[in-house]
């Protein structure tokens, strides 16, 4: 899923200050799962903003709405009237959703309510971790299902580096050395030979480095 974190109240308060009527628009998919922008978070945030302005002696009118996904037009459409009757939209969707809303409702002020961070998983209750960098050329078969592009802080193809100690990365003791994990996993699988050969420099054309990407499915284009 895409993992995001709500922006701090102080930042949001200043962002929405110019507007008297605000639509707080949630998304029921990724950001709901990471507790950043689902229905519950919309309600909490709208209330928090009302309280934040209230304790200044100001009032703000908020409308609350959540759609299934803000990255698909069919769902975004449902918000059309709500968007029109408010001065601005505070979208709690990931960056893709915010942009989809902005594209769809060209004349509306669309504000981002969360900081979108990574593609990840729920490793255990309350802990989301980054797993995939979207490099566009997956080599997880070579690395026993552990991604060196994402999980190695230096994206090494022929790791580990000299800073790996006790299975931890030199950047932080909270970060496991991906290469230690890869070596352990491949050893357990009897596939350590995967790492004995030279792994060439990665072709980054398929990643964001090659420019923003697109995917077309001709069989679905009508």
């Amino acid at each position, binding site marked *: 899923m895409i993992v995001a974190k709500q922006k701090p109240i102080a930042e949001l308060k200043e962002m929405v200050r110019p507007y008297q009527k605000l639509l707080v628009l949630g998304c029921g998919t990724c950001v709901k799962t990471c507790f950043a922008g689902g229905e519950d978070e919309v309600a909490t945030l709208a209330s*928090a903003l009302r*309280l934040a302005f*209230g*304790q200044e*002696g100001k009032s703000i009118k908020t409308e609350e709405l959540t759609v299934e996904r803000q990255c698909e037009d069919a769902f975004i459409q449902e918000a059309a009237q709500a968007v029109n009757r408010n001065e601005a939209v505070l979208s709690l969707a990931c960056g893709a959703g915010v942009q989809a809303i902005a594209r769809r409702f060209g004349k509306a002020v669309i504000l981002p309510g969360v900081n979108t961070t990574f593609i990840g998983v729920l490793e255990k209750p309350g802990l989301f971790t980054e797993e995939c960098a979207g490099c566009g050329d997956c080599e997880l078969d070579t690395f026993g299902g552990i991604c060196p592009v994402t999980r190695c802080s230096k994206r090494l193809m022929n790791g580990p580096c000299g800073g790996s100690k006790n299975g931890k990365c030199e950047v932080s003791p909270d970060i496991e050395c991906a290469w230690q994990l890869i070596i352990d996993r491949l050893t357990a699988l009897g596939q350590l030979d995967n790492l004995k050969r030279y792994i060439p420099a990665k072709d980054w054309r398929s990643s964001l480095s090659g420019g923003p990407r697109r995917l077309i499915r001709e069989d679905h284009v009508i």
Partner: protein
Amino acid sequence: MNAFDQGVFSTSADVGGALLQSIKLPCSAMVRDIFLLRAFEAGADGVVVIGCPQGKCQRIDGNIRAGKRVAWVQKLLSEIGLDGRRLVFAGSDTVDLAIANLLKDMMLLGLSPVKKETGISK
């Protein structure tokens, strides 16, 4: 507060004329962030969430979850500009003490800056 078992909420703490309102839920873990914020929007100057005593949750870990949720909202309240000390969590065995302490804090913090009608006389 586990409303199914405990009936009407009461406390022996000296609330000195403060208005006490209670809301009953089957388990403290059913408290949602929004309930707590709405309480402040409705004009509350302080909020206590009462759950089962530590280690005695009737639903295994409900009071632990409630405690964490309250901590989260305390932080949020501080970020909003309302002091997080206005919100507390207490086990049903320490309610009177918790309310007494909360009232002490509220004397220092004053009325909620969110302008509404309900207030404390002292």
